[in-house]
């Protein structure tokens, strides 16, 4: 395909249009991804999550600049939530990254979560693959750690970083949210604020209690991203984690799990769509629902029967 050829020849416009095709599920999206697939698997994927206002975008901006100093090209996928009321979204991550716009070694794409059923992680994965095929060395996926699908995205990265800040009320709040468990490394941003030491201790205590983290002890870095302080140490930690993953053989495992997740999600998606189209959106199904409501029938055998018919 012409767009794929142009993308592989580093056309930024082709990359951008290809991401749009995937995001909007245009007719040519599957063909693009099919042709792209053999060219993927080379980039290192970094997932960044944390609560709103933690400074993820500012930190991403700083990390991108530091990677550039170290000779790496960087793709960034910045995800912000879609309003459940209007379907619109304000994608504001780019505001922290505008001075990256003059660097051809960087490509930033803002994505809205939209309402799709688990489709977000698939579309993000496709955007990552397109940047990978384009030739980006490092791809950063940045998202607010609130929903399951956002956490899924970060979980499937090679290295996952959780960004926290001191002074968000009760420090136990962050632990409660559950996002701390997915961090391969932690960054306490805005570390000039009061409560940094306390937060550091809290995270360390939590890590002590996690028996799975034996071979790799997640490091805790401190940054003041708005002033560019502490960024180099974060990259050093990412590199250390990468080396650990390679030497222990974990990288291959993580990537196999990622592929498995992706294919499973694609299968689920296909089956869901098939059921929506051929079962849920039929007049017979409305009739079934009516019978269920009047208790003429019960749902368990209905499901058995439908599944028996659909998945022959």
């Amino acid at each position: 395909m012409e767009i794929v050829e142009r993308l592989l020849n580093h056309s930024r416009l082709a990359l951008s249009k290809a991401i749009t095709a995937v995001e909007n599920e245009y007719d040519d999206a599957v063909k693009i991804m099919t042709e792209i697939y053999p060219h993927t698997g080379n980039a290192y994927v970094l997932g960044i999550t944390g609560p709103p206002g933690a400074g993820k975008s500012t930190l991403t901006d700083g990390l991108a600049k530091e990677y550039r100093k170290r000779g790496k090209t960087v793709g960034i996928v910045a995800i912000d939530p879609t309003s459940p009321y209007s379907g619109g979204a304000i994608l504001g991550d780019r505001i922290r990254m505008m001075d990256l716009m003059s660097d051809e070694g960087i490509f930033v794409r803002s994505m809205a979560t939209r309402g799709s059923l688990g489709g977000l992680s698939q579309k993000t994965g496709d955007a990552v693959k397109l940047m990978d095929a384009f030739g980006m060395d490092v791809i950063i996926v940045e998202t607010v750690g609130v929903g399951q699908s956002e956490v899924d995205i970060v979980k499937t990265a090679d290295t996952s970083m959780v960004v926290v800040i001191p002074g968000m009320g009760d420090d136990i709040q962050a632990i409660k949210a559950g996002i701390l468990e997915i961090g391969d490394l932690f960054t306490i941003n805005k570390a000039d604020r009061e409560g940094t030491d306390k937060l550091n201790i809290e995270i360390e205590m939590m890590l002590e209690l996690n028996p799975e983290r034996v071979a790799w002890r997640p490091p805790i870095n401190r940054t003041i991203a708005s002033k560019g302080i502490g960024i180099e140490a974060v990259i050093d930690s990412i590199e250390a984690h990468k080396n650990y993953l390679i030497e222990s053989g974990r990288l291959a495992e993580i990537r196999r799990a990622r592929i498995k997740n992706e294919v499973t999600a694609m299968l689920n998606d296909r089956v869901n769509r098939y059921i929506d189209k051929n079962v849920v959106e039929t007049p017979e199904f409305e009739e079934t629902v009516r019978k269920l409501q009047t208790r003429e029938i019960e749902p368990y055998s209905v499901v058995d029967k439908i599944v028996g018919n659909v998945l022959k």
Partner: protein
Amino acid sequence: MANIRVLVAKPGLDGHDRGAKVVARALRDAGFEVIYTGIRLTPEQIAEAALQDDVNVVALSLLSGAHNTLFPKVVELLKEKGLTDVLVIGGGVIPAADIPGLKAAGIKEVFTPGTPTSDIVKFINENVKA
């Protein structure tokens, strides 16, 4: 499932972003995906962001008086980058006498103070090639 994507940007040395933020919010509420890029941007930064985010619309806000230079420059750079089908609109304190010149330079519409945000939404819905 295609959403209209709008880049809201303030070119030049002008920190007055209240209007741009009000418009950004109104566009979000109308169901658009709004990429808000902030203040004091060069036309090059705006055009590159428009390319990377593959937006349908670039909405420029400017209150410093430099619109006659900066708005057409954005249009020019978008074309240079191959973004030929992007709708460019402008807003701010723009004298009526300048509007025909801006339109001739490729700014499709100019919204001055007092414009209801619904007019902007309507204009975008009617003029974006879906």
